[in-house]
């Protein structure tokens, strides 16, 4: 038995570096589309690389935006600047509370905001956050929070991408990388402050209705509550916001009320503005649940008025 266990242990010690070597080799010599479980995309969709580069050199701000693409495509710092507020947008594509927590831990002391606006799109709460992990692993520095969270994901693609990302960082392969501010493939323009502007319109809304489902994995709920508790400890008010969506993405009244009952007691306020731009959706959206620039301008003005009327805006 001892001989067998020793062999198993030695094999494990042999297999781990061998596994790492194969992952690095596979990621290096063939395109990523060729293997399903490494997804490394530095400078990929959503300008996360540009955003974090800027975040690393930005100081204190009045308002910090957190959340998914609805955050970084929904709150334009230029509009808030005109209203007298400095702001930064830390959203990223399909970001779930687990990844929000990683970014929060890394940047909260640097930004030291007077107010946090947290986009709550229920769908992101219900996922494992794999897509967002891959985005972070490709574009963010590997720190302790990210590595531990990636390990905890129990997902082969996340682990493999983490290995490949670590190798690229350790061997200096990312040095000198720059991401263009405009991606013509997506018509996305990176705007300082973490925002991404999209000017597309003439979106044709569908009629199929999206059904509400609230079943977040426990780790997402824990991460969400951790952010809220940490902010409370720091004395930073948190506004939870459901940003505008088109009518088919609108939940039924009873589901909206249920979400309201769930979220309202957790933060300073919960604002369900999901129907704020109903009526002319082709004008304000570029897909079923993302606003174009015109929609963002309309929504941000409305959002600022809403906060002001409730006395939730910090002094500029």
């Amino acid at each position, binding site marked *: 038995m001892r001989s*067998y266990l020793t062999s198993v242990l030695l094999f494990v010690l042999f297999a781990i570096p*061998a596994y790492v070597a*194969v992952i690095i080799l*596979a990621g290096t010599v063939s395109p990523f589309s060729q*293997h*399903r*479980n490494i997804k490394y995309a530095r400078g990929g969709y959503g300008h996360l690389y540009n955003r974090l580069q800027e975040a690393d050199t930005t100081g204190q701000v009045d308002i910090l935006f957190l959340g998914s693409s609805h955050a970084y495509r929904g709150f334009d710092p230029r509009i808030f600047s005109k209203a007298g507020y400095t702001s930064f947008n830390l959203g990223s594509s399909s970001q779930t509370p687990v990844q929000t927590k990683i970014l929060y831990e890394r940047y909260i002391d640097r930004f030291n905001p007077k107010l946090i606006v947290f986009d709550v799109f229920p769908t992101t709460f219900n996922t494992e956050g794999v897509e967002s992990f891959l985005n972070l692993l490709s574009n963010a520095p590997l720190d302790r929070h990210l590595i531990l969270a990636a390990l905890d994901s129990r997902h082969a693609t996340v682990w493999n991408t983490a290995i490949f990302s670590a190798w690229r960082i350790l061997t200096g392969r990312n040095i000198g990388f720059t991401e263009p501010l405009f991606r013509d493939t997506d018509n996305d323009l990176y705007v300082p402050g973490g925002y991404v502007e999209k000017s597309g319109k003439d979106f044709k809304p569908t009629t199929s209705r999206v059904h509400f489902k609230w079943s977040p994995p426990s780790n997402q709920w824990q991460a969400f509550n951790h952010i809220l508790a940490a902010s409370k400890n720091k004395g930073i008010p948190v506004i939870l916001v459901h940003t505008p969506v088109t009518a088919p993405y609108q939940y039924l009244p009873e589901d909206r009320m249920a979400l309201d009952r769930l979220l309202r007691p957790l933060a300073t306020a919960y604002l369900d503005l999901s129907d704020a731009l109903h009526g002319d959706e082709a004008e304000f959206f570029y897909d079923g649940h993302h606003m174009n620039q015109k929609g963002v301008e309309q929504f941000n003005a409305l959002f600022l008025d809403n906060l002001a009327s409730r006395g939730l805006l910090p002094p500029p």
Partner: protein
Amino acid sequence: MLFNSLDFAVFLPLVFAIFWAIPRRRTDLRNGLLLVASYVFYGWWDMRFLLLIAFSTILDFYLSIGITNSTDERRRRLLLWTSLVVNLGLLGFFKYFNFFLDQVNGAFSLFGMPLGSERLNIILPVGISFYTFQTLSYTIDVYRGDLKASRNPVAFAAFVSFFPQLVAGPIERASNLLPQFATPRKFSRTDAVNGSRQMLWGFFKKLVIADNCAEQVDRIFASHESAGASTLVLGAVFFAFQIYGDFSGYSDIAIGTARLFGFELMQNFAFPYFSRDIAEFWRRWHISLSTWFRDYLYVPIGGSRGGTAMRVRNTFIIFLVSGFWHGANWTFVAWGALNALYFLPLLLAGRNRQNLGNPAEGRLLPSPREAAQMLGTFTITCVAWVFFRAQDMEQALDYLGGMASTSLMRQPDVGNNNLPLLVFFFVCLEWKGRTSEYAIERIGMGWPRPVRWGFYSMLIAMIGLFMRTEEAPFIYFQF
């Protein structure tokens, strides 16, 4: 509990450690542990399933003792029939009730008298076909006098529910497995290493070959009406590898896991796609089920004895029953019937036992004749697999019709460019190891240890690179 789950990755080392920590002489304690572990493993799906397996176990335990104790042939036969009726009755109810109800409803509707009977909401207990056949063989063997009834309820219950092979076989004979529960298991490093290696190969087959094939098979079968002939052919070929990788992969993991505990299970697959005729295929495919049907159905109804009509009848019976065992759908019956049609010419010509050895014995490559024979056998097998995979007869016939269309020479829609390469790599390893019990049993035995371990590490890395990240259940669980 799935083999390919994190739950099992914790469960197995835990049970392994406790099992071998129990002193060797305490076979009773070890059997008790295996029994508890097996019930935990099975109850992981649904605790209600435990009632059913416990009922079957208790019933067959006492009926078999009754059979052994009795000298009255009528009583012995009554006890045997009780076991057969109850076990097959349970299997029939859970697996076939709704199917028969649908047929009866359909038949009455044809005559304008719809019964309107509603289907029952029946959950099919995982692996019921497997453990039912295992306990049936035990009772029949006891009745025949080939085996004495077990007097040890814990050992018997552990035999019925032994977790490595409980839900998808191999369907063990009591004469092979039950005595192993009665004798002290001695740890063997060779067996444990061999078992670990076989598990690795089983996981590779399941996670890399079967699950990746499944993705393309699902896509092609779902859109078969618009797919070209070459794509449909590819879908059938991928399904052949999916079902082989899935099922034989499970068997390898099961046999390997049993070896870790010092148990030897029977070989269930012997490189069936290298068969040179369909009779050889059936000696190499799902061996534990084929031999079960041979010993408990084919031989008792006359086997190959008697006239031509008798042999034709018996062949059809065994293949049709085998098809129906797989599921309550006419597609499985058609799959069985087609295989009977493939098999009959060989049987009637007395050529069904002409390929008993390994293909290309002692050579690296097959002769042109052998290659043609293997290709032919594989082709007709793939045609039959279309029935096995299809949702219903209509889809199967549509699919086969599509395969025969003029677009056969066009480039197929592979979907995943890696897959043909992975399958090719897999076939090469299978060919290389075709004389072993499983492909990588002896591959690399003469290599220096770092090279051999490098090979195993590469297989693990391929699993990590190509596995589907959501848990995919094994196909044969539904049977």
